[in-house]
């Protein structure tokens, strides 16, 4: 009985470890220290385009495996988000965010771009960027 319980605890533990978290990261020049999921949703929908200090927000999309966890974490669907970007691009309202395919590229780009925001797997986060939100 004890052994069975141990196995269940181990399996649950492994499943938690295996579940990859996603972190919303930003350039260190950004004044905000944390963001809510709804704020991140507004930013990625390009409905909020300025930081609290008036600086321009530069959204960078991540097309790696972190994508699905991120969009479900902020209550959006990746397909409808792309449609919103295309609508804003084709009506002249905004430029669609540039996209990169690896967490390392994203971190380098965010670290080098003032006002930039993106997301990566939590295990990839580096000291060159700041974390504004962890999505589970």
């Amino acid at each position, binding site marked *: 009985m004890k052994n069975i319980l141990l196995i269940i605890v181990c399996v649950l533990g492994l499943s938690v470890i295996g579940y990859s978290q996603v972190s919303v990261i930003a350039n260190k020049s950004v004044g905000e220290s944390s963001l809510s999921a709804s704020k991140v949703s507004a930013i990625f929908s390009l409905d909020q385009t300025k930081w609290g200090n008036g600086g321009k927000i530069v959204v960078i999309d991540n097309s790696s495996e972190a994508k699905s966890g991120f969009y479900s974490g902020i209550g959006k669907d990746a397909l409808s988000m792309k449609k919103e970007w295309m609508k804003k691009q*084709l009506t002249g309202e905004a430029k669609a965010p540039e996209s990169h395919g690896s967490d390392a590229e994203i971190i380098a780009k965010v670290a080098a771009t003032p006002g930039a925001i993106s997301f990566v797997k939590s295990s990839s986060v580096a000291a060159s960027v700041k974390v504004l939100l962890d999505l589970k």
Partner: protein
Amino acid sequence: MRKSAFKLIILVLGLISQTTFAQSDLQIFGFAQTQLKYQKGSYERFLTVNGVKQTSLASNYDQESTNFISGSVQQMNIFFRKEMTDNVTAWVNFEILNNYSSDNKWGGMNLEEAWVSYQYDDLLTIKGGLLVPRFNHLNEIKNRMPLIPYITRPLIFEPTLKNTIHPSIYLPERAFIQFTGKLPVENVTLDYALFGGNSETQYQNSDPTRLIETGADSVTFKMVGGRIGAKYGDFYAGVSTTFDAANYQAVLKENVKRNRIGFDFGGTVQNVFFEGEYIGVSLKPKNTNTDINKSFYYATLGYNLTEQWYIYGSHSTLKDKENPAFKNGLNGNILGAGFKPLPSLTLKVEYSSYKCNDTFDVDVPVAPGVSMKFPYTVDIDFKAVQIAASFLF
């Protein structure tokens, strides 16, 4: 001499490269939709006397039918966008329709938009110049083919039906100033738009022999309107209105006050997507009590089979009390599917039909000073099958 010419070439090349550098943040992009269309249809109007269709008098009878297959570049738009500063953006949009050729007098080319915008913050952006105002949902994007699933659009949004239904009756097609803003509040984003522009297109002067310059609005009153909306996740809804006057000088000898009211909604649930709109056009003539109000609605329901494949169906109805043929409604139905092999390419296939069959009484002179009422029928029935490729460049 050779040395001077060489220096001149270097100077010119230098200037060109400098100009190119200065324009490096100018974005030029666009899209096109090419199509192959098979259309079959007929239009017939006739008078019935004692149950017999009258076809002898041209004034009481007209018939036309079409049956063709044609390939064409249905639409192509070229956009120029430049962010002059973080807050100032310039935008120009040229639209080319139906295999445009000035040589063969085919199709048309329009300057659709040319505006500059200033964003004070997310709550206030001011746009000035030729622009498509935000009225309901589809008006602003009706001509952005990659954004919409359709090949033939719902009734009033379809330019090929322009001779039967002029969109400017139902929609503010142009404005010259627009204030917009967004306010995210928790999970909801509220938005507004206020716009103003020239009165309807029928007041725009295109006669070069007149004193007023061509393309200028020939009256002093203007169109004003706006929309307020809300977005929650993948759902949106809004209410729109405009106030202006319609040109009824030829019929009623007056400018008739017009108020358009619109409601729009849409969203995505799991893989199901939907959108719909209602537009009511209220016209208040002073010289007559005749009801000439109009209304239009459409509803579309679709399903994303995968990230690449989608299917949809749409129904639209237009009612026009001014036109006896459309009193009970002109109905449009669309069934279609799309496939996106690449993010910038969509292949579409669509079946569409437009139908109206109405019988109403008309006064027909039967003797000098004597007229009698006879039933008059208008029958419109068009069907089309189209395949199209919509691509961004």
